């Protein structure tokens, strides 16, 4: 099978070596890796809908993945809203449209910046965490130990984590969006005082269902992709301690890339509606 051009190949090989990754270095490897992720997703859907269900573990994972990410996602959201507002005020002032700052920030944050930035942060924190945790369990034979005791480790470890990731990310994004709007409110008040009610009324007046619903729906796909990639990298980690680091790093890179690709597709689909 044909290889990617030599220059690209060398870049990927150097990236793999410099950042401890296992990115595919040939078309053949890329197709193989993609195929493995699809098979992994197929196995997830097969096992996710078969009883018995691990509700308790899924809840525990949701708490661990979601609740413990609140501070990081909150700080990120605040900074996004705050800086975006500060950056926008001078430009909108030039056009005499300073009153549009709240609605502009709301549209930008809710439609695009909030979901994407929060998901990238989530991929960095949770994707790598899942990859490292499962990779470490694979290396130390803990997954094999579950397998030999007949306890269906895929369902217990993978299905629960992907479900937790899929359903907690949208909640985290909504939380980040609200904090970002609050950050925007504080930034607006630095230049000229504005009432909180007026700020939020102005922010929401520019929003329609088409701004909120597709942006929320795509975050489920982001969450699923991050959970899936993290679990796939960890579950299929090779033997040896080095592979734990490789699994974690590769999970971050691939899941971040998937967030951006899914976002691009979502924007295209939304624009057709």
């Amino acid at each position, binding site marked *: 099978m044909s290889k990617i051009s030599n220059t690209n190949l060398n870049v990927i090989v150097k990236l793999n070596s410099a950042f401890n990754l296992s990115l595919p270095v040939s078309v053949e490897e890329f197709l193989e890796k993609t195929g493995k992720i699809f098979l992994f997703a197929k196995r997830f859907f097969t096992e996710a809908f078969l009883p018995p269900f691990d509700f308790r573990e899924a809840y525990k994972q949701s708490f661990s993945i979601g609740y413990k990410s609140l501070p990081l996602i909150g700080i990120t959201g605040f900074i996004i809203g705050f800086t975006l507002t500060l950056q926008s005020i001078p430009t909108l002032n030039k056009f005499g449209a300073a009153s549009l700052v709240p609605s502009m920030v709301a549209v930008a944050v809710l439609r695009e910046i909030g979901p994407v930035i929060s998901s990238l942060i989530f991929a960095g924190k949770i994707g790598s965490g899942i990859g490292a945790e499962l990779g470490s*369990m694979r290396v130390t034979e*803990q997954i094999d*130990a579950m397998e*030999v*005791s*007949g306890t*269906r480790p895929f369902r217990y470890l993978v299905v629960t984590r992907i479900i937790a990731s899929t359903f907690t990310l949208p909640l985290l994004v909504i939380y980040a969006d609200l904090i970002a709007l609050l950050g925007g409110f504080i930034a607006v008040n630095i230049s000229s005082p504005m009432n909180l009610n007026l700020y939020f009324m102005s922010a929401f007046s520019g929003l329609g269902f088409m701004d909120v619903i597709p942006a929320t729906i795509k975050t489920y796909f982001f969450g699923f992709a991050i959970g899936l990639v993290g679990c796939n990298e960890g579950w299929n980690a090779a033997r040896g301690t080095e592979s734990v680091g490789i699994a974690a790093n590769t999970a971050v890179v691939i899941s971040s890339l998937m967030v951006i690709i899914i976002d691009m597709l979502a924007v295209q689909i939304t624009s057709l509606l």
Partner: protein
Amino acid sequence: MNMNGTDIALKIENVTKAFGSLKILKGVNLEAKKAETIVILGRSGTGKSVILKCIIGLLTPDSGKIIAFGMDSHNLTKEQRPIFRKKIGYLFQGGALYDSMSIRENLEFPLIRQEDYQGELLTDKVISALRSVGLESAIDKMPSEVSGGMMKRIALARTLILEPEIILYDEPTTGLDPFTSKEISELIIKLKEERKVTSIIITHDIPCARLVADRVVVLKDGIFFKQGTFSEMESSDDEFVRGFFDFK
């Protein structure tokens, strides 16, 4: 278990296994009687752990059969699989305790998921398993808080909790001091005497092999090429076999 009128617990028939072009097992045959303890000796990287992983089903042999409890381990039905897995225990080289769970949760895990134990019955079962390895006081500790020897004993307790009829030990005493190593060996003997457990043990620890083995088999070039009692193997004419016993 009575297999073909004899008292055979486990039968391995002409098992082969290769990884790519590297042929590891080239036709392994073995019969283990009920309550028999077999020690497998062999150089590192010759496929001893591969045999155990084929028996338990973590690896699939390329050809051959592994029969236990009247079931072929690689042609199990959906209903047979959990029964088979429950009857064969596996003690991993590093213990493989789940490090995100306490010792109690480690032992409860297979019971809750395989047997649906709840409440007091579950706790009693866990305490009894830990008592059998002398470690009931460690019940609420995390795996990171116990020593290597304790970890091995706790892993053995977790293996025992489902009351397997066959236990596979992958280097149970590696990395342990002679005293802890002897304790583990004595536990293996106790299991054989009290529960009539069939054991297959991979070890390089000759004092342990001397204590526990009913039969010693030597793996060389992908086959079991010599077998006998410990004293027979120790005084073998074969230079390779003697190499495992001669430390001078």
